[in-house]
């Protein structure tokens, strides 16, 4: 085990700290790259409850695509809670994505389709509850959501990177 205060110890520590800084920058880079090279889709939500914003810096989004009919399940065995799944989304004429199928394996999307990964939260008699890990939206300081008083439905712009990561790009209020 190296002793302290030797040149090799200091060099090792510097390398380790530099690696940590590079790693954090890498995470930030992945965030940029997901938007730059990713596929862009839009997801609609149910009305968003803004009351939590008084105490927390995020709101919970409930996606329309978080519920899929059980007929959309395309797995060999019945779906189980907490199972990781691949959700095939089809972009409609209004550019909003809807669930076309829920798979238990990776698949290649066709044109005007996208695959978003998620997890099964609940299995109901007729429907499947899904979670995308995109439910928590940290609202930036200049977002229109911070000015709103009522509960608006929003459209969430999501980009999906070719290597599988996904991020919320922006959240826009739906005009009604």
């Amino acid at each position: 085990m190296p002793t302290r205060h030797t040149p090799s110890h200091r060099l090792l520590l510097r390398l380790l700290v530099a690696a940590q800084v590079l790693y954090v920058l890498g995470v930030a880079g992945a965030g940029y790259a997901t938007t730059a090279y990713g596929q862009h889709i839009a997801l609609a939500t149910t009305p968003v409850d803004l009351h939590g914003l008084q105490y927390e810096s995020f709101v919970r989004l409930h996606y329309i695509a978080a519920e899929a009919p059980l007929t959309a399940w395309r797995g060999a065995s019945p779906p189980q809670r907490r199972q990781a799944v691949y959700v095939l989304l089809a972009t409609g004429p209004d550019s909003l994505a809807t669930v076309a199928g829920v798979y238990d394996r990776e698949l290649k999307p066709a044109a005007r389709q996208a695959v978003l990964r998620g997890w099964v939260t609940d299995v109901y008699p007729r429907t499947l509850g899904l979670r995308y890990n995109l439910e928590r939206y940290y609202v930036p300081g200049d977002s229109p959501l911070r000015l709103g008083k009522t509960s608006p439905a929003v459209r969430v712009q999501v980009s999906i990177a070719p290597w599988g990561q996904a991020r919320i790009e922006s959240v826009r209020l739906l005009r009604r």
Partner: protein
Amino acid sequence: MSRKFLETESPAWVTEGLITEAQRARLLARYPPEAVQAVGLLPLLGSILVGLSALSVVAANWPSLPTTVRLGLLLGSLLAAYAGGEYFLRRGNRRLGHGLVGLGLVMFGVSIILTSQLYQLVGYDVSGLLAWVVVGVLLSYLYNSTPLTLLPIVIGAAVQTYCTQALGLFSYATIGLVALGSGYRWWRRPDTLVASVLAVGLLWQAALWVVLSHSKITWFFIPAMLAYAAGDWHPAGQGTDRPAARALQGPPLVAAYLFALGLALFGETDQYAGLLRPPVLAYLGALAAVFALSVAGKRRQGRLASLPDWLLLLPGFYLPGGLPLAIATLVVLYAHAGSVLARAHRSGDAEQLTLGTVLFVVATMVAYFKLTWAFLDKSLFFLIGGVLLLSLSWYLRRRNASRLAAGAAAVTGAGSPVPAPPAPTSPPAPLA
């Protein structure tokens, strides 16, 4: 020994002629009062308050800060913590230095989490947080510090918890890093606290694996007893006095004991026993392999006396549920308590003696509860139970006291000038 104790007790030593007044004065001079330390705490408290105020300002304005500023703040505090740690270590302030290095490691994890949050980025595997565990394990090798060794174990448990709960998958890399990385660090520099935390951390991850994979909970004891076997192989401190190795074996043994206790209490219902029965050949094969490993380690280190620990792992749950299972488990519990008592008597270890007594009393309580609750009048049940326990505790206490007194007498009788802990004396009396 504290100075206060020395101050109050030493006059009596002088009057009894144990030490002279001059020796008393020299002893007092050797341990000066520690009034200075309290004043030394003030700057630390002050800087903590200043730090908290800065933290609250940043936290309150976090969402409205520009992305680059947020990223800069994270990386800046990470670098500052490491630089400060090295600075204080070079000046010889080890505790503060190691604390700041630990803070740097925590800042690294916080930076990963907050940066992903900054971009609302979702990862689908643990690779983002795995780097945190890797850096933690590497840092623990760079410094000779117990807290810095504990940190990666705790971080590993936290990462595994997040991974299984949020992502629904088990990270074998995380448990491997903790078991091999932190485990080897402990192996080289054994320490009781690190051993206990390491064992608890690994058991926690093993439990998460059992829950996630919907396995029978008895599979938990394969990894748990692997940790136990590692304690058997550890070479430090030959003989019975191996606190660092025993500390690693403590948590697995506690888990096994609680399991056996649960089996004795609830094993009668076949429904519960059914939850425990993994495929016979696979489970028994794996258990036998770990057992062989443990026995080989015990032989090598000359510790075969602790072999009865394995009594708790007897797979009694394969017996048909109902009374046979409950009785068999009770017999095992009694045998185990008896083995602990016998070993304690042989070594004259007061702590082990207490432990053995408690185990014996617990086994008796469970047996009494099992066998009489159903058909005894409840007031009579509690009365007889209470009297049974009282007489049992009186008997065991008397036995232990006489045993320890005999051990001490043997030592002083041999003319030993210093009061040593009671040495191994005569062969143990037959027990239980």
